[in-house]
């Protein structure tokens, strides 16, 4: 599935180098914005695994993002920092478990049903946390202390430090990218790509396709949980809107905007969409209108996303897909 043009790969490597140097001279605002974008890129990559990897379009993916953020906020003690060594596994476990339960129902369906089911379950979690008193209702909750990264009683990373959090996000983004790449090259990845192209054939070959789809759904949910963990750590606050379908739609938009043919697509999409959003917000109070028009125009005019702009061999590739 990966048709990342070489030029794009080189540009991406350059971008990582530039990002790594950035905290030396960039302003506080830029660092914060880029940290958020990289968090969204991780989230978008996890959804990209479902959409372009397995061919499952989820409109409720923000649910696992929100859950990750909430689990960290709720599990952290009020008077001291949570240790990342138990908090992160807890967040990953909770998101994966939620994805297992929702996925077990959802992967039995496909097409429109799958879209609507994921949307409905995402909204269910939204309302659950929106109405729950223990989670702060519609106001959400604050995280009093950012998680501590300690080793042998020594603090090795201070997440309170803005550049450090930036580097952690950058590292996690690159790691997620590499991990998903490895997964797609492994037999598991070949199998889910096969399911996307022709599920009945994979079934006929003896694959339990539902189990593969469910596994991919759980992995995507767990990665989304990690993104939620980063979000809660950065903003030290969570609210029910993180679960909402509007968030899910935006993440889906990032995946499409970047382009489904390249594994870099979701990352490009996350950068492009958040920057466009920032631009519109700076220009007008009614930026959501501009976003809506932007979404419509992109969907109609750029079926292959931004990564497709770099790909001159597109027609040949299409003939390949047959």
């Amino acid at each position, binding site marked *: 599935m990966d048709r990342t043009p070489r030029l794009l790969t080189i540009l991406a490597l350059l971008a990582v180098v530039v990002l790594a140097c950035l905290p030396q001279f960039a302003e506080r605002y830029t660092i914060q914005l880029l940290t958020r974008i990289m968090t969204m890129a991780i989230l978008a990559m996890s959804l990209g695994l479902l959409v372009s990897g397995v061919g499952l379009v989820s409109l409720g993916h923000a649910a696992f993002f929100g859950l990750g953020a909430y689990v960290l906020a709720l599990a952290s003690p009020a008077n001291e920092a949570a240790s990342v060594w138990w908090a992160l596994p807890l967040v990953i476990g909770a998101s994966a478990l939620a994805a297992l339960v929702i996925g077990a129902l959802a992967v*039995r369906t496909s*097409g429109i049903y799958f879209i609507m089911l994921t949307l*409905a379950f995402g909204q269910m979690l939204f309302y659950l946390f929106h109405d729950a008193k223990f989670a702060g209702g519609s106001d959400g909750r604050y995280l009093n202390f950012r998680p501590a990264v300690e080793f042998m009683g020594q603090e090795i990373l201070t997440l309170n430090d803005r550049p450090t959090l930036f580097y952690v996000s950058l590292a996690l983004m690159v790691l997620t990218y590499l991990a998903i790449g490895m997964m797609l090259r492994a037999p598991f990845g070949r199998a889910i790509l096969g399911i996307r192209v022709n599920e009945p054939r994979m079934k006929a070959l003896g694959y339990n396709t539902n189990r593969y789809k469910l596994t991919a759904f759980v992995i995507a949910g767990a990665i989304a949980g990690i993104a939620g963990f980063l979000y809660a750590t950065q903003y030290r606050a969570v609210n029910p809107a993180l679960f909402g379908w509007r968030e899910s*739609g935006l993440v889906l938009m990032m995946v499409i905007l970047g382009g489904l043919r390249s594994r870099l697509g979701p990352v490009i999409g996350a950068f492009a969409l958040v920057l466009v959003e920032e631009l519109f917000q700076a220009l007008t109070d009614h930026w959501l209108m501009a976003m*809506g028009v932007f*979404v419509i125009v992109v*969907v*109609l005019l750029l079926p292959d996303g931004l990564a497709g702009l770099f790909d001159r061999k597109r027609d040949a590739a299409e003939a390949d897909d047959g």
Partner: protein
Amino acid sequence: MDPLFVALQILNGIQYGLLLFLIASGLTLVFGILQVINLAHGSFYMIGAYLAFWLTARTGSLWTAIAIGLPLALVLGLIVERVMIRLLYARDHLTQVLLTYGLILVFNEAQRLLFGNDVHGVAAPEIFAGSIRLTDTLSYPIYRLAVSGVCLALVLVMYLVIQKTRLGMHIRAGAVDRETVQLLGINIQALSTFVFAAGAGLAALAGMIAAPLSSVYPGIGEHILIICFVVVVIGGIGSIKGAFIAALLVGLADTFGKVLIPEFSSVTVYAVMAVILLWRPQGLFGRA
């Protein structure tokens, strides 16, 4: 629990269910015939509610508001189908989801530009004002009964149109096999436009008659949209009969959820959906 109280809750549940059916029927038909997933369907409900608020404030009567607003909504549905939805027939669901998602953002922001963020109320027509007193503490608003009556009448009309007329036959056939219907010389394009506009009109009408029951507020369309998705999924995509039964089921589940487990009332509907889908993944009347 007091049997009278339970009876009133059943009435409430049925009324809500009937209202949901008006919206969900359009949604399920658009899936069935146009094979388009329309996230912006809830926007027509919102547009109806705001038209009711705005026109009632201008003309002083909900009747006039509906008489002016309904044709407006139908025309808007027609335009949206001609300009936007038509482009989506050949595209995949992913494109449809995103394009109609973009439409929601545009409609919502247009609402905010025109009417702001305030919550508004709409007065019920005078002949339906007041309520029936049942005991010292219990009473039932007449307007709710009127809404149920109007919805039931519309359900009956829809049933007659779909089951007993040639147009209805074309719609039913279109939901089963679009290509064959086209091959038989029926103008499926015109049929699609009609179904979409009618669905938009029904959703807007639902928004108008529901406006006096609940307030009119930003985001009103999104809430109802998700619930209607649940209805369509439970009933089976493309099935009007399924949508009807599912709408009543969801209406009752939601109403009793609010009474019995107020803490988690918003989750009851989804729990019902989960149980039904465990049993039948394609919905009650869906084709697998």
